[in-house]
């Protein structure tokens, strides 16, 4: 099993098969958006039509959830950006007592099942008599988005190294100047990538949201209702395509932003 040799055929087939397994179901979502059958999931579709895109556009019940999801995702990822970066900065610059506990605390909101985060927040709201609002949704989302930003930022801080910060100090910059002129430009693309991933995560989250939203409806909650009580099934597919696009584009952008990072931020090796 040499790494430079040709891979065994069975391995190649299994690997490609695994990738196909991951992607074919999503392709099917696209196909069903064009079916003429709206009451069942008949395969193959009896006919093809593009009318569902127009129908979806004109359905008034889709727009408010979409706006709410966008608003929640924007606020949550902004908060996660600040909190995640601060945490990463602290972890990168020092070894201190309780460091492991902090890293565990950051990971915990996504390591524990979402239903626990949701149920916990809900009990806390009940005890504190906090009414459901956009704010209660954001509270949950920002909590599990911190780790996404943190992971991206901490990796970049590690590459940045101490030498550049020392050089900046030697040249007479104070901590704030170093932050603005050295740290931020080096951190920028990692933060943008982390922020976009956090946005995608929040935009799509449903489990925690069902506990923290009350009567409000985000786009994923709208979709969940359509899954349980379907009407005009292809319209759900059209919305699904929009959601897939809304998450794919940030992921692709985040990938291209952090891809060349090893070569560009070379300091401190």
């Amino acid at each position, binding site marked *: 099993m040499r790494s430079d040799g040709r891979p065994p055929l069975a391995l190649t087939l299994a690997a490609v*098969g695994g990738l196909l397994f991951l992607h074919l179901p999503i392709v099917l979502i696209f196909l069903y958006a064009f079916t003429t059958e709206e009451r069942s999931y008949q395969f193959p579709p009896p006919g093809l039509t593009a009318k569902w895109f127009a129908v979806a556009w004109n359905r008034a019940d889709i727009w408010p959830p979409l706006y709410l999801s966008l608003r929640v995702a924007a606020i949550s990822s902004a908060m996660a950006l600040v909190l995640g970066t601060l945490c990463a900065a602290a972890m990168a610059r020092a070894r201190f007592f309780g460091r492991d506990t902090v890293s565990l605390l950051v990971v915990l909101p996504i390591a524990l099942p979402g239903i626990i985060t949701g149920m916990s927040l809900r009990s806390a709201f009940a005890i504190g008599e906090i009414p459901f609002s956009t704010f209660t949704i954001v509270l949950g989302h920002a909590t599990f988005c911190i780790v996404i930003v943190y992971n991206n930022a901490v990796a970049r801080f590690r590459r940045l190294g101490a030498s550049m910060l020392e050089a900046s100090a030697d040249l007479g910059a104070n901590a704030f100047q170093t932050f603005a002129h050295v740290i931020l430009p080096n951190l920028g693309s990692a933060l943008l990538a982390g922020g976009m991933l956090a946005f995608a995560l929040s935009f799509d989250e449903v489990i925690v949201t069902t506990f923290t939203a009350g009567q409000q409806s985000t786009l994923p909650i709208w979709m969940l209702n359509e899954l349980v009580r379907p009407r005009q099934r292809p319209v759900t597919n059209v919305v699904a395509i929009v959601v897939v696009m809304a998450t794919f584009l940030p992921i692709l952008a985040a990938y291209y932003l952090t891809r060349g990072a090893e070569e560009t931020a070379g300091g401190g090796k």
Partner: protein
Amino acid sequence: MSAATHPARGPGDRLTGLFWRRPKLLTALLLLPPLLWLGVVYIGSLVALLVQSFYSIDRFSGLVVPEFTLRTYGELLIPSNFDIILRTVTMAAAVTLAAVVLAFPVAYFAARHAKGRWKAVFYLGVMLPLWSSYLVKVYAWKLILAKEGIVTWAAEGIGAGNVLSAVLATPVIGGNSLSTSYIGTFLVFLYVWLPYMILPMQAALERVPASMLEASADLGAGGWRTLRSVILPLALPGVIAGSIFTFSLTLGDYIIPQIIGSSRFFIGQTVFSLQGTAGNIPLAAAFAVVPIVIMLVYLTLARKSGAFDAL
């Protein structure tokens, strides 16, 4: 640091001097907001949940009695409740094992054989399904597993229609159609969590030095022997890191078994219905504590094995 070597010109400089003299102060200031947030919002809520689980519900009035009792936890051991826990843990274990088997070839190929453009294809090929909408993925499987859907169509197309019927006729795991059986639930869990297993496995495999594989070959080990004695032990931290996700996510999910599966409950569904329509918050909280305990034990073991370095 005296003023001579670091002339203070403004408040920013004075603060810089302070941070320089007391580096721990800056660390503490940086940590304060995130720790405050996670401590108050997250840990605070977890404590609220924990507290509720020690309350009980009055049988006659249906109101929560805010007095410390272990009775609610005792209710978890009632056969019908304990079955739910057992069913969920079994499903989580089955999904995790299947995910390891399915993820390994993809992770291994991506880590050791994919070069250049193929490396990017594999990376994005795992990243995109990982990040694409959870509900969209569940929905896709509702289309696939429906009685009139593509699986039935394909099975009949290749003349395996009766094989599918025979599988569905199997007691316990079978059902009326794939989308109302445990097999369906299992497949969807496996599909949705698979990328969470591939990525840490790939990270661990990438760190296995090629020289070790060469050494193994030089010492006369064949492909399988190297796989078993060198690659798998070194990939273990990645497997554990991945299994944290597959196990934990399966334990807490309530949407997948609700959309695709038999009507028998999993922990997540039980929590959701208990806190919602049934209004039994204490029992819901006690049920929610079960995955926490399982995961905390798991995380402690995982941390000892160094799995967090592979995250």
